[in-house]
């Protein structure tokens, strides 16, 4: 606060005397000025806030206590008060010892006996400003962290998408697939492992839930299953190993896994199929309702005795058969009446889509699901289609 000239003696205002005692007990600084900005009254709280003795303040021109820049700002606020009758704004009050005190100023015009006065109250907002600054800093850190997480998720999504099987044509088989996580990453995944031109192993897997936790478990299982598929072990053994792995190594995750697995030999026109708690796979043949292949094993990761599973199914295939594997994100969609599409609904969509050329069938199924669905997808959805020529 700059040095100021000595104050002029000021005549005491008659109307002020009765309320002076009230103004003294307020926890806010109070200043009363004349129309010409001469200080007529300050309470002891304002003296404490500014650090300037009362005798220096009273009678002085208010502008003497501020830098040119500060006074320019205050003059603008005074103009607003004069125009509106009252005004409220934030200000940094310069103190005599060089300190600066953040305050909220409430100012209003008072007219008495033809004269105009300004009553100014100053509330110390040091604590609020400190908290606001801390919040601002915390928000900045959170935003920074969020950007890091978003970047991590983007990379994770890229990795997960890169694991999704690509549509492939080999020998007498075409494999077409679709994968859509409801968040950037999810708990569905599929594996396609070609043994040779006409033999392929397929796996469709769904980890309960969705989001990061499911995606992490899905990626662990992806590695496990890929090893098992390449080793050519039986599906029954693979389910047993996966169940033990989930219960013993990922204990406490409270996540279950459903799996549909198929090994197709186009030369022999045979397919081995096994499911663990998974929605039934389908074989679409001509215009008939698709055949359902039910899971014979329990969901994996739920109970230790789930590994006591039955043998896989052996199915004979015919030319132009289409094998459809999917996750519950395809069946568990609701229309505007709240009706779930369900397996039966998907079965009908697959039947209709099987009339399309093989290369258009996947899109035909997806179109049918979207046509049923009211609103956006709420679960990860995967679909795999194999055309046996």
């Amino acid at each position, binding site marked *: 606060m700059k040095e100021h000239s000595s104050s002029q003696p000021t005549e005491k205002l008659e109307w002020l005397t009765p309320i002076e005692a009230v103004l003294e007990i307020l926890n806010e600084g109070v200043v009363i000025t004349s129309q010409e900005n001469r200080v007529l009254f300050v309470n002891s709280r304002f003296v404490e806030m500014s650090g300037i003795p009362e005798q220096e303040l009273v009678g002085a021109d208010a502008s003497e206590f501020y830098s040119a820049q500060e006074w320019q700002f205050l003059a603008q606020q005074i103009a607003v008060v004069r125009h509106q009758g009252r005004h409220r704004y934030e200000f940094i009050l310069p103190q005599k010892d060089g300190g600066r005190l953040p305050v909220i100023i409430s100012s209003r015009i008072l007219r008495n006996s033809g004269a105009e006065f300004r009553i100014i109250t100053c509330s110390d907002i040091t604590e609020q400003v400190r908290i606001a600054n801390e919040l601002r800093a915390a928000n900045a850190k959170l935003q920074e962290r969020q950007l890091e997480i978003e970047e991590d998720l983007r990379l994770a999504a890229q990795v997960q998408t890169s694991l999704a099987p690509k549509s492939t044509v080999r020998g007498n088989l075409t494999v077409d697939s679709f994968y859509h996580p409801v968040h950037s990453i999810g708990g569905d995944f599929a594996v396609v492992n070609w043994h040779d031109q006409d033999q392929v192993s397929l796996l469709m897997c769904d980890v309960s839930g969705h989001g990061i936790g499911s995606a992490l478990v899905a990626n662990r299982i992806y590695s496990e299953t890929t090893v098992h598929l390449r080793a050519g072990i039986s599906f029954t053994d693979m389910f047993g190993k996966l169940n033990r792995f989930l219960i013993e190594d990922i204990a406490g995750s*409270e996540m279950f896994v459903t799996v549909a697995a198929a090994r197709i030999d186009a030369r022999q026109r045979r397919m081995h199929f096994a499911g663990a708690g998974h929605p039934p796979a389908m074989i679409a043949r001509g215009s008939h309702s698709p055949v359902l292949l039910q899971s014979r094993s329990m969901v994996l990761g739920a109970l230790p005795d789930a590994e006591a599973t039955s043998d896989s199914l052996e199915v004979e295939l015919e030319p132009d058969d289409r094998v459809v594997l999917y996750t519950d994100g395809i069946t568990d969609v609701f229309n505007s009446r709240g009706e779930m599409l369900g397996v039966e609904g998907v079965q009908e969509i697959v039947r209709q889509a099987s009339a399309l050329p093989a290369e258009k069938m996947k899109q035909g199924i997806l179109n049918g699901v979207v046509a049923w669905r009211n609103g956006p997808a709420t679960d990860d959805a995967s679909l795999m289609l194999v055309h046996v020529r």
Partner: protein
Amino acid sequence: MFGDQNTSHSAGDTAQISCRRHDKVTIFDLSGDIDFANSRQLRESVLREIQESRTSHVTVNLSAVRYIDSSGIASLVEALKASRDRGTRFILFGVSTPARELLQFSRLIKVFEIYDSEEQALASMGHCGSVHRESRSNHRKPVTRAQQEMP
């Protein structure tokens, strides 16, 4: 006589979980859609009941469940495992078609003790179903805010 305590709360936008308790039996009434958004709440409520061993029988009424997803089923399996550990009997009844379908697909239907109705479930525990049904309706009136906290 049924419903010495009766608690109820919303589990998200689309589901409701309420609890009735008397002597040896606790019944959780579920309604609406049990999915990823509220299955944690279901799991916590049922597990707490089992772990605190307040009653020797914990049953879940699924008759008003419109939809249940794999995370909801996972919660029921967690409850089943906890009840085996604590020596509590865990029973499902009134399994709605969507819930039954999912239990069949997941091959878990044989793992649970399931009854068609509350009366049958209670009879299996040696309770008289009709008395409980009468008492049950008495306690279906709205609960106060103070009662809404799950035990």
